[in-house]
């Protein structure tokens, strides 16, 4: 994993209306390239506001943001350059999809990059195939299911080949099938070297998936570290009203009872924990 810092925020302050309530309240963090970062925290803790600041939609009243070492500038040209590198998939696809036709919708972003129509056509076809949109590509947007809309809204961004993809609660209101699908797509993004920032309320998923977890609390970073570090920090978890991941709790109980060896690497997912238990059981033969 490279140590290059791709995104850096220093002491950000942002307030939507007045100077008394701040959505971002002196927020500082650094994101390294290629990492899978989970953003967690209560509703209103500033995750979405931070994301909008990252894409330059909102301009923090105080503080500095930099992308690949270059400080954010808010003239039109710099913003376009920035947004071609940082893509955001919004939580509610209905706020993002503005075309009735899926094909036209996906082509919007890439044409804005100044790509020739022929090239754009190729890219759009590729992404439609890649994200398995083909079965409903001819349907109008208003006839799509929530999960299908999500697929299209991810395709919208992926087609632009950004360096960073921000996903604002991608699994919100999705059925298990589409949640799995979205998770699979996210995994492929990281494999392709894209830095993925994702906000989620699913502790178990964040623990299994993320390289780093950032806990937001009242517009500030409360805790930033590897998934394991953060989910071991009970104080930070209780302050943000999060429960520790089930796999981790179970593993610790099993260790305490002496069923599992506590020198084992804490398991990230249920499968690993199951394997541990299978392997620890005294052989019958």
């Amino acid at each position: 994993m490279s140590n290059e810092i791709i995104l850096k925020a220093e002491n950000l302050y942002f307030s939507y209306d007045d100077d008394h309530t701040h959505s971002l309240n002196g927020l500082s963090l650094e994101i390294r390239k290629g990492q899978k970062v989970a953003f967690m925290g209560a509703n209103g803790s500033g995750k979405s506001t931070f994301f909008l600041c990252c894409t330059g939609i909102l301009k923090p009243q105080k503080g500095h943001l930099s992308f690949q070492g270059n400080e954010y500038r808010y003239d039109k040209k710099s913003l376009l350059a920035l947004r071609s590198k940082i893509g955001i998939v919004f939580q509610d696809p209905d706020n993002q999809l503005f075309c009735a036709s899926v094909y036209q919708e996906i082509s919007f972003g890439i044409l804005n990059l100044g790509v020739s129509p022929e090239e754009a056509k190729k890219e759009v076809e590729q992404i439609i195939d890649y994200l398995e949109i083909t079965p409903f590509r001819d349907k109008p947007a208003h006839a799509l299911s929530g999960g299908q809309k999500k697929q299209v809204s991810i395709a919208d961004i992926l087609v632009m080949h950004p360096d960073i993809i921000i996903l604002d609660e991608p699994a919100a209101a999705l059925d298990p099938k589409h949640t799995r699908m979205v998770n699979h797509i996210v995994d492929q993004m990281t494999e392709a070297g894209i830095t993925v920032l994702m906000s989620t309320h699913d502790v178990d998923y964040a623990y299994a998936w993320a390289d780093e977890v950032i806990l937001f609390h009242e517009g500030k970073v409360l805790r930033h570290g590897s998934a394991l570090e953060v989910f071991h920090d009970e104080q930070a978890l209780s302050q943000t009203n999060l429960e520790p991941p089930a796999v981790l709790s179970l593993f610790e109980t099993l260790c305490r009872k002496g069923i599992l060896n506590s020198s084992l690497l804490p398991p990230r997912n249920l499968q690993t924990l199951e394997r541990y238990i299978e392997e620890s059981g005294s052989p019958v033969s």
Partner: protein
Amino acid sequence: MIAIDKLCYNSRLRYENAGEKFAFAVITLCICVMSRSTATACIVLAVTGILSIWKGGIPVRRYLRFLTVPLAFLFLSTLAVMFHIKKAPLDLLAIPVGSWYLTVGTDSFLYAVQLIFTALAAVSCLYFLSFTTPVPDILEVLHRLRCPALLTELMLLIYRFIFILLETADAIATSQNCRLGNRDYKTSLRSFGLLGSALMIRAFQRSGRLYDAMEARCYDGRIHVLSENRPPRKKIIVYIIIFDTALFLFAVWRRFFS
């Protein structure tokens, strides 16, 4: 409107080139309106009906039901054309009213019939277009015809968000009904007002968020999208030319030589 939208996405003619369908509907419509002849109108009515039902796969009953939508309006407006108030009665019908007559002549009667048929045929042309061509395809044609981008972009956004507006209104109305929001006339009136204001606020919020989302995808003030149009087929173009030329000649003959 939603019914038409659903029908057109399922139409068998949906994947024909939109320009062909658009040209056929508009040219036929123009000939039909300018001809002012019942016979031409009947031909148009029959052809568009057959195309929509047989080629497009629209159920006959639904098609006829859609055709009756403008009928009531048509009848009411042609009554004024048909009836005259005159001192002397005309040949077809006369109802004495005091010393005057409310009266219908053969000429005015035929004129009213012709109006009804022409209007129906014109509507059937537009139905043909809307039953076979999804709105994004029509916008694509308008764009090619050099319709100002501002208009087509507005139509694109309005078309998409009409459905969201209706969905939202529906959800709010349902939740109001669940809480007895339509218990009596007074409460339902109040609920309706609240629904309106809630919709207004939501629409504003949504437009803000949509703008953000578009900006995040490098929106620069113009909506660029790829068109996905099927290439026109020569055979169909020839058919359209033959039909509309024949229709035009027929209309000219009816008007000037018969």
